[in-house]
């Protein structure tokens, strides 16, 4: 891989989700040079795994298409996938960043013709579908993957399968000898748009995500609803593949909870309200029940909440569900708790439970690896507040869900703002360097 030469006139954006893409493009369209690094093989991030957005019920892939078009047409942005930041040294205006490049085993020659996938029989869990389905070990991460190039999974590299893939490639794009590389780049400012990850539902023991097949996460439910997802868009129960008709949505699964995430993840109420409409659209006699503490449908989202409240297929129970038991006869989860409005005890059987899992900053992983500098200030939930030292020393900025649990719209705002902050650093460094 050719590694572009970066200078201190360049902005580094870490993370290729919608916040990172936005931060990179907004700066690039102001004429700045940007390097965008993403640790997975494709840009798009979490939003590309969502089926629809609230409140318009429009498709995230529509915005992704526009952003990818912006990217393809803009020579100011250099995209590096499968690249992670391992260390940052230096100061505002002059950071030296070590990047680790994980091999893709596929070169730029790849035309995405798909012959390698046809040749390979080994399968791996499909990360794009949160493991709800499997795909070939030579794969295109998803239909809108960018760059549009296949990936060879490391598990087949030293195997006959790997050789089969290589042999099948008509354009000699597979290079099984690729190795991990480390490069250092010099940048003036850094935007951390490392995003979020769903809170590990296994940790919420009373809900039995690890034990009950028909307890899934809200992210997995998005994949079920997507026509390009593992069930072709049908809302099927994992236990028996039957259509789910009576679905419970449990809010604050991990959020607003000092045993798990102390913050409110902001998006989950609206996400569940949106998902009730997937149930409605699926037709038939599907019903949704939302178990909640407070419905946080802020500003014009309130309209959406009122629309869902008027929907006869949806009911609301003000209650944090205490625990889930299993009806072993039919694998139905039984929800136990108390409706606090007037104190009504319930034991409600549903055929599918969707846990509205909270947003945990992905940066938590970087912290564990020691990859984050000490001068990045985090709040008590590990969201990036900023850079120590105040306005004159800050050259690193958090953007999007790395900075706060935000919805897409606000993440984009946040990323746009962070982009300007980065531009200011370059401007000031340049103007003080005027000979």
């Amino acid at each position, binding site marked *: 891989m050719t590694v572009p030469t970066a200078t201190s006139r360049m902005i580094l954006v870490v993370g290729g989700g919608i916040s990172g893409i936005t931060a990179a493009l907004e700066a690039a369209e102001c004429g700045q040079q940007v390097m965008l690094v993403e640790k997975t093989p494709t840009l798009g991030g979490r939003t590309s795994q969502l089926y629809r957005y609230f409140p318009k019920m429009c498709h995230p892939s529509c915005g992704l298409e526009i952003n990818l078009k912006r990217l393809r047409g803009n020579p100011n942005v250099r995209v590096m996938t499968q690249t992670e930041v391992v260390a940052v040294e230096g100061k505002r205006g002059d950071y030296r960043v070590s990047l680790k490049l994980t091999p893709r085993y596929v070169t730029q020659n790849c035309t995405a013709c798909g012959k390698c996938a046809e040749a390979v029989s080994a399968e791996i869990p499909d990360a794009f579908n949160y493991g709800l389905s499997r795909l070939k070990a030579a794969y295109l991460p998803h239909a809108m993957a960018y760059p549009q190039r296949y990936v060879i999974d490391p598990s087949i590299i030293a195997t006959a399968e790997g050789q089969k893939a290589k042999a099948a490639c008509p354009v000699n794009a597979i290079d099984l000898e690729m190795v991990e590389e480390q490069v250092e780049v010099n940048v003036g400012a850094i935007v951390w748009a490392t995003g979020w990850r769903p809170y590990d539902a296994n940790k919420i023991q009373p809900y039995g995500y690890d034990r009950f097949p028909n307890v899934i996460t809200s992210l997995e439910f998005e994949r079920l609803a997507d026509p390009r997802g593992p069930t072709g868009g049908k809302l099927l129960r994992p236990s028996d593949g039957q259509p789910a008709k009576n679905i419970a949505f449990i809010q604050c699964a991990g959020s*607003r*909870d000092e045993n798990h995430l102390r913050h409110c993840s902001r998006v989950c109420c609206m996400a569940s309200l949106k998902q009730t409409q997937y149930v409605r659209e699926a037709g038939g006699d599907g019903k949704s029940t939302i178990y909640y*503490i407070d419905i946080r449908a802020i500003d014009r989202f309130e309209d959406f909440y009122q629309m869902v409240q008027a929907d006869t297929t949806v009911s609301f129970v*003000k209650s944090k569900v*205490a625990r889930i038991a299993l009806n072993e006869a039919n694998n139905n989860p039984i929800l136990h708790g108390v409706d*606090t409005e007037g*104190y009504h*005890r319930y034991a409600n059987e549903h055929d599918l439970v969707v846990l509205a899992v909270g947003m945990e900053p992905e940066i938590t992983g970087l912290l564990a690896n020691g990859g984050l500098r000490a001068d990045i200030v985090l709040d008590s939930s590990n969201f990036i507040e900023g850079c120590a030292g105040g306005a004159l020393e800050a050259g690193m900025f958090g953007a999007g869900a790395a900075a706060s649990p935000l919805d897409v719209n606000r993440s984009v705002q946040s990323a746009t703002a962070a982009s300007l902050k980065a531009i200011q650093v370059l401007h000031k460094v340049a103007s003080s360097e005027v000979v």
Partner: protein
Amino acid sequence: MATNLQTPAPYHNNFLREVEERVEEGEWVKMCMQCGVCAGSCPFGPHWEHSPQKIFMMIRAGKREEVLTSDAMWMCTSCYNCVVRCPRQLPITHIMHGLASYAHRLGLVPKGQPTHEFATMFWNNLAKKGRVNELKLTLALYFKDGLVAGIKTVVLAKRLNPMEIFGGHAIKDLKGFQAIIAKAREIEDKKQGLTG
């Protein structure tokens, strides 16, 4: 101040403050966010009048008499399900016991409340000899519902040493123990404003 007759203004913080000051772990009550997970987690839930979360709301609403005469806190079996699950990490079990103890002190326990009766017997038993005479305690408990039922239960249980019925043994410094108890009660009463 005639504490046990006072009716606080509704939703004004007098009773909440009283609870904070006089009930063990009472200062946690204000931190409840009314999610209801405690109510749903309690194995005895179906049998009581008010759930912990409701009790906490009632405290905030100044429903002093209703709270202190509720049977809710007497039903707690200390399973700690609520404490483990509470998203605000409230020591709910302790608060419930604290409320029970406070109600007892104020003489506001519902009449015939079985847990209270057991607790009283337990306490009297303990206070007398400095240790619990399980047999006497259990007999007292079982016979409270009548002689026949009691005998049946005891005989079936076959788990107690019948010899303990004859006096039972005390701890070594029984007088000292009783003095400690008396002093502790005095200090506690003073702290809670029940005396002095």
